[in-house]
Every structure is written in C-alpha cells, then in structure tokens.
C-alpha cells in the first residue's frame, strides 16, 4: 500500500536535483500492517527516564545522602575508626578527596582484598539506600495486568491509569540525581542525554496511518539513523533535518498501534530494541513494551515508552562511567545496584528465582525530520 507524503508547514513541492550517493524523490513508502496514506517522521530530541518527583514526602525515610556523606558511612562499614576517618577527611580536604577517594574506588572486598566496587558491586556491603515508598504517581503502564489491585502499583500522573508498574521510579526515586519531572529533568538523565545526543546515532520515528488527523490504526516504527542528532544553536533538537536510516535490523522496531484523540497507543506488546551507547545502556531492550505518543499541534511529538528492562543493563551504564560519575552525579553506585536488584519485578531467573528485569518507563520528545530509508526512499516531516 502506498503512502502519500504531506508536510507539516507548507507543501513541499521540491525536486532534489542531485544527491551525493542517492537520488531521492518524494515517493511512496511501503510499510507493512496498515492501509496507510499518510506518513510523518520525527527524530528523537530527548530520551530519558520518565520521572515524576514532586515532593520530598515521597521519601519518608529521607533523600539519600550525597557522596560526601555516603562515603563516610562507607568508611565506617569498612571498619575505619572515627579518628582514622577524621584524619583522612582532613587530609582529603587538602588533596581533592585524596585517600578517601582512593579507598572508595577499591571499597569492594573479595576474600578480604580490596576490589573494584563498580565492576563487582556485590563485593560491597549493601549501603541500603532509600527507595521511594511514599509516592503515589509514576509514569508508565500496567505491565503485569493486575490493575489497581497491584499493591505496589502507581498511578500515571498524565493518564491517571491505575496499576502502573514502574519499579525503577521507585528504586531511584529517593536518590537526588534521579529525582525530577518531565519538565524539570533529573540531573542524571539530563547529563546522560547531553552525552548521548552528540555521540550516538539519532533515533528516528516513522508514523503511518490512513489519516493522522483522525482516529484509526497506525504503525509506529523506530529506527536508528546513521548520523547524530542535529541541534539548534541553543542546544534544542533541530527540526526538519534529514536522516538516513541505518540498515542494521537490530534497531528496527515496527509497532502496530491505534490513534485516538491525537494519542497513539501501541496495541501489541512485544519486545523493543535500539542500540544506544555504553555510556547509558549499550543495547536498550524492553519486553512487554508499551508506548503512548502524543501528536502535538506544533508538529512535535512526545510520549512515554515503558516495559521490562534487564536491570543489569541499567546498572552497566553506571559502572561504565564510575568512579567520576559517582562523585559528580549519581551518588553511591553499588548502592544503585542493590536498589535495582531489590526492586526488580519481572523475569525471574529459573535457577535462583531472582528477578532479572525491572519495570521502567522513559519519556521521549521528537521533532519533525526527513527520513531516508535504507533503500533510498524519502519520508518527510512531522
């Protein structure tokens, strides 16, 4: 079935005379699944954990301390006396963290020997960081299908759906670096996106449907581009730029969905996979994928992506950037390991029975873009 391209702002009557490696024309783009007549394409301009932390009462046990306090607790755990700690702290003050940092970077213990705590987080005694126990809201979806009866479930602050499973929000909700909201992004995810956007191929979204101004079936396709996201002079994502899709099938996701009142919900909840970046998650994978996307009047798109994610994958991003990131951004990284492990709520290991996946939700926003498929066909604009 063919697709007729439309443009967001004005009709795009153009003829692209010569392109370096491909002669592109405005043409039909065949996509499976939907009797489609309209295509809109976007490039993801932000992607990070969907957080909704609005008040400290979400953490009745308190917000987790930053490293300057947590490290002192860790020294006590390691068996240092208060006098030794005081001495080290005084020396460290003259030496930019000096010996305290050095001890912390090898605070794991295996057979009594100092060990890298980031590569071997289980070698560290669990610092028992606080998780969010007082909050009611978190973005996401009812992944386990238990609805409001699920005792640990949240309510989505946007849709007010009950039974939302989002244990990653609970696990990290009392760590300052992860606290934030969709409009006031958390320190960690802001930092992460700033690293990612200029160092990894952009993600592009193609939405096809019979008429995207009306309710109906649609197909949402996620692909990875060959080029990084282009940014405006103020750092915001640059609209109306052209991206060529990477033919690598690992980052190709075709998701059937339904558009209703300007909101797309995917209707099949399989797996989702996009190659990302070792700085955050090398290989971003979800199972039981849920997604809702808002087609906004200004031509942009935003939404929530949720599902179960292997918590070890999430932890690996923290470990890769330690120890600098521990000091500057995340706080105690082995502590995050234990939080993830404790709050994992899916995919139990057949042998140990421990859950290997955790319910998550991510927020994304995207701006209109032109997208060229691997076979040279062009789809244009949001």
């Amino acid at each position, binding site marked *: 079935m063919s697709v007729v391209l439309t*443009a*967001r*702002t*004005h009709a795009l009557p153009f003829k692209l*005379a010569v392109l370096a490696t491909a002669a592109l024309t405005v043409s039909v783009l065949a996509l499976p699944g939907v009797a489609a007549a309209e295509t809109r394409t976007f490039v993801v301009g932000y992607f990070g954990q969907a957080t909704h932390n609005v008040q400290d009462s979400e953490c009745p046990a308190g917000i987790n301390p930053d490293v300057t306090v947590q490290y002192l607790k860790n020294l006590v755990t390691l068996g240092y006396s208060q006098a030794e700690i005081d001495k080290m702290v005084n020396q460290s003050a003259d030496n930019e963290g000096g010996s305290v940092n050095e001890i912390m970077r090898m605070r794991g213990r295996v057979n009594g020997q100092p060990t890298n705590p980031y590569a071997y987080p289980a070698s560290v005694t669990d610092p028992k960081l606080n998780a969010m126990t007082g909050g009611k809201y978190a973005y996401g979806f009812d992944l386990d299908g238990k609805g409001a009866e699920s005792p640990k479930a949240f309510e989505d602050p946007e849709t007010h759906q009950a039974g939302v499973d989002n244990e990653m929000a609970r696990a990290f909700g009392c760590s300052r670096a992860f606290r934030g909201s969709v409009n006031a992004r958390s320190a960690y995810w802001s930092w992460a996106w700033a690293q990612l956007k200029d160092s990894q191929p952009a993600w592009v979204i193609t939405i096809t449907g019979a008429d995207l101004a009306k309710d109906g079936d649609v197909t949402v396709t996620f692909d990875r581009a060959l080029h990084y996201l282009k940014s405006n002079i103020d750092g915001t994502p640059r609209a109306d730029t052209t991206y060529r899709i990477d033919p690598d099938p690992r980052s190709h996701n075709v998701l059937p969905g339904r558009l209703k009142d300007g909101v797309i919900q995917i209707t099949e909840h399989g797996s989702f996979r996009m190659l990302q970046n070792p700085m955050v998650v090398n290989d971003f994978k979800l199972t039981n994928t849920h997604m809702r996307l808002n087609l906004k009047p200004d031509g942009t798109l935003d939404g929530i992506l949720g599902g179960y994610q292997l918590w070890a994958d999430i932890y690996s991003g923290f470990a890769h950037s330690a120890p600098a990131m521990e000091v500057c951004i995340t706080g105690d990284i082995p502590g995050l390991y234990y939080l993830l492990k404790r709050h994992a709520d899916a995919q139990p290991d057949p042998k140990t029975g421990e859950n290997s996946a955790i319910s998550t939700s991510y927020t994304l926003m995207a701006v209109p873009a032109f997208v060229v498929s691997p076979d040279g066909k062009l789809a*244009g604009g949001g």
Partner: protein
Amino acid sequence: MRPTPINFSKVRFALALGLGASLAACTVDAPKSAAVPAVLAGAANVGVPGLEPITRRLTPEQYENVIADVFGPAIILGGRFEPEMRVGGLLAVGSSAVSMTATGMEQYDVMARKIAAQVVDESQRKMMIPCAPAAANAPDDACVAKFMGKVGRLIYRRPLTQTELAAYVTAAHAATEKAGDFHRGLSLSLSAMLSSPKFLFRQETLEPDPRNPGTMRIDAYAKAARLSFFLWNAGPDQALLAAAESGALNTAKGLAGEVDRMLASPRLETGVRAFFTDNFGFDEFALLTKDVVLFPKFSPRVAADAQEQTLKTIVDLLLKNRGDYRDVFTTKKTFMTQELGAVYRVPVINDGPNGAPDAWQPFEFSADDPRGGILTQVAFTSLHSPPGRGSPTLRGKALREVILCQKVPAPPAAVSFNIVQDTHHPIYKTARERLTAHATESMCTGCHKIIDPMGLALENFDGAGAYRTTENGQPINTSGALDGVPFDGAAKLGQVIHDHPATSACLVNRLASYALGQQLPAGDAWLKDSTAFFATNGYRLADLMRRLATSDGFYRLKPPAEAPKAQSASAASAQ
C-alpha cells in the same frame, strides 16, 4: 648562541621613510620615471566626462589574495584589518575614501612580520626563495635582489625601480650583518615591503597619453591592476604584468586579449563573488545576530551557508550557464546544505561522516513554490531583518537601494517605531497592519509608500528566512505593487523586479562603480551605453564585464580644473 637582537623598528622606520610613497601628494616613483602626480592629469581620453584619479586601500580579501598568489595559500596572515567604509552602497567605493590609522598600521606591520617570518622559515625557504645565500650568517646582496625583485613585482604590481630595490637590498644587508643571519635580514626587508603604502594602497600612476598629446592616461601597470582587481579581486599575474611591460596592454588588441584570458580563467569566479559580496553587503553578516529563542535554527553556520548559497546561485546562473542577470530574481535553481535544508524545511541528506562539513547539493524549487530568486533566499531575508522579527521596511529599502539603485532617505529623527516593533501588539497582528498604523504619521508616509509594498511581499519569510503563512494567527497578505505593476507574493515580486528597467541599469552602475572605486555621475553617457549593451546582449554578466574592461570609458581621466601646463609639459618631455 642567541642571535644578536636587532632594533628592527628603527630600520623599518627608515625604510618606510625612504621607500614609502607620499600619499598626500599622490606621487609615485614609477619604473620609467614617467609618472606625474595624478592631479596633473590631462584631458579625458574619450568623449565622455572623465573620472577622478583615485587611490584605494586594498580590501582584506584583496590583501589575502595577493599574499596567497605570491607566497601560497598556506600563509597565515595573523592580524586584523582596518575597518572598511561603505560609500554609495559599496565598500569598493569607500576604499578610495579611507586612510590608515596608527593602530591599523600596527596591524599591517604585525601581518607583514608574520608573513615574512613564514616565507623565510627553514621549512619553507627552499620553495619560497629562488636562491640560497653564499653563507647563512652573512649578507648576500645578489640573492636578496633576486628574491625582492621577483616578489616585489607582484607585491607592488609593477617592477621595482632600481632605487627601491637597492634600498631593500641595503636594508637586508644591514640587518643580516647585525643579526648574523641572512634569512632574518631578508625577513626584515620583506616585511618592510609588505608594510609599504605602495602595496597597501592601489595608487594609479599617470603618464602622458601619446594618442592625445598634452594629456595624461593611467599607465599600463595601473591599468593591469585595475583589470585584475576588477575581474579577479587580486593583483595582476605575471602574464598581465608582462602585457603591461611590453606595452600590449595599451593596444586595443592586447587589452582585449588579456581581458579575454582573464574572463576565461576560473579566477573570474573570485572576482564575481567579490563584487556581489560587496554589492549585497554581506560583510554585515559579521554583525548579524538573531534571537536564539525566536530563531533557534539560525546558527553562524546557517549565516555562512546562506551567503554562500546566494553566491553559488549567482555564479551558477551567470558564469557557468551564462544566464540572464535578471533571472537571479526568479530562478528556482539553487544549492543547499543540510544546515540550510532545516531552515528551508526541505530534505537534504549528508552522507559524510558525523561532523564532516556539509556538502553542497544542487536543489530546485518546484514551479509553484513560493520561493524563487535570491530575494527569497535566507541571505537576503535574514540580513535585512532585526534580531527578533522580519522587517518589510528594511527589506523594501534594500530592494530599492541595492537592486534598483534608488536612494531612500533616512527616517526622521523624532519618529516613533513603537507600533512597528511591537510584534505582539494586541490590535495590529501583522506587520502590514502595524506599518499601516505607523505610516499614518505624516512624516513617515512618503518613504513607507515606496518601500513597504516590496518588503511586505517578503513577509512570508520570518526574520531568519523561514517560510510562514501567518503572523500571530493572522494570514499574511503579500500583495502590493512596484511602480504601478501589481504582484502578490515573493515569487511574483521577483518577476516584477526581473522586468523592471532599473534592475539591469542598477547592476551596470554598481559594477562600474565597484570597478572604478567611485560613484559615477548621474546620466553618465558611458554608463548608458554600457546599459544598452547589456540589454542587447542578453544581460550576460561576463559580456558586460568585458565591455566595461575593454572600453575607453573604463580608463578615462578627468582633466584638472587648473592644469599647471609647465609641469605637465615637463613631465611629458621626460617621457
């Protein structure tokens, strides 16, 4: 062992005193001692009013081009140029009105030293200097003379006189003895040459005109320089200097031959770009700012690409395709980069590696696209807009002045622009409504009547050149009329300008003024003749340039008000 420090400044000062021309008197030490002060010039050599002999300061681009021609493009200048001045809409005309400040001279001195140091640098000298000294720590006058004579011919745009060459050799000799280093001595002499007014200013030497006894003409070397800076925006090459030296340039056949050779050269593109860059005021992009909140896509890269887009459009149409000049206002063909594509909202794929420079790609808007012609390109619409909005007034004024050569008076001092600038005015939603309200002030009406309709036709383009159909939710009305000819929209305006008789006449006027460094008098017969030629020869730019460069009117001189006959005669007899 450390080299002996030399007080170069004293030596250089002495050289400047000895070798620098007296600009105030406009006298030069020409090779054949035929020159006389320009003010003593004789009658015009054609049947139209003559032109003032002038001296022009090299523009930064001309300076760069000369240095690149003489020493190669890898030479780093490493200094700042004196600000330029726009007169009559052209920096080229302003170049004859500017002087040199002490600070500016310091900067030229800095550049001269840096250039000279690179030329004599151990890594470069074998390639740059045509001889090796007999000893590295002792003077070698013959080698200095060989080098300075060779480069001096290109830097001074004529052969050095024996006096000049001897002075440079003497300076290098003395400096070498003091420094104990031949190349340091040579560097000093070269930097003095590069600081000389004879390089930095284009002085046109006069000589008696044998075709019209008792009158003067610019000499063949000055003619060569006038040609090369006009056609290539660079100094004369060896072939052109040879034609000047042989006298061929003073013959119609020889002149035509050289002009044709230069027009056939790829360097013509440099000259054409320089003219349009000046004519369109693209130097003002250096000061152009846009509100990043309102126009986040408008980056420095977009600004640079926008200028290049317009220049590429012009070069492609006028030079590569020998097209009709008027079509630059209607052509649908242009070039795009990915950066520009985002502003135009058209797809432009860049398949280079991440971070690679944007590749230029040919692009053609469809026949019914609202864009067409350079007036609808980002360069024009963004340059003639304030930081936070578009401006029909500035755009209309630029159209009148730059494209049609019609002078628009400056606004009255006491006028209020409050309504015009209030883009969120609760009543006047569109620029047309705001200007209509503003123009009710009697002192504003006249000018706005002639400039606003043209500018309003471009209101579909916001302050950064992006297309829009509404402003504050209101549809934009782009209809109007230019000198009684109605239009609706930018594309139609382009067609009206294409057909307007002032358009081509203005181009001829601007091009001639640019080449000659002075505004030509109203009703100049040579201009009229050139304009008629342009019209009857398909409005082809290269043909017009040839016509100008080979005509007597291009080299004519104005007779002095009171020619001191005794001195003229004396000078003539010296020849």
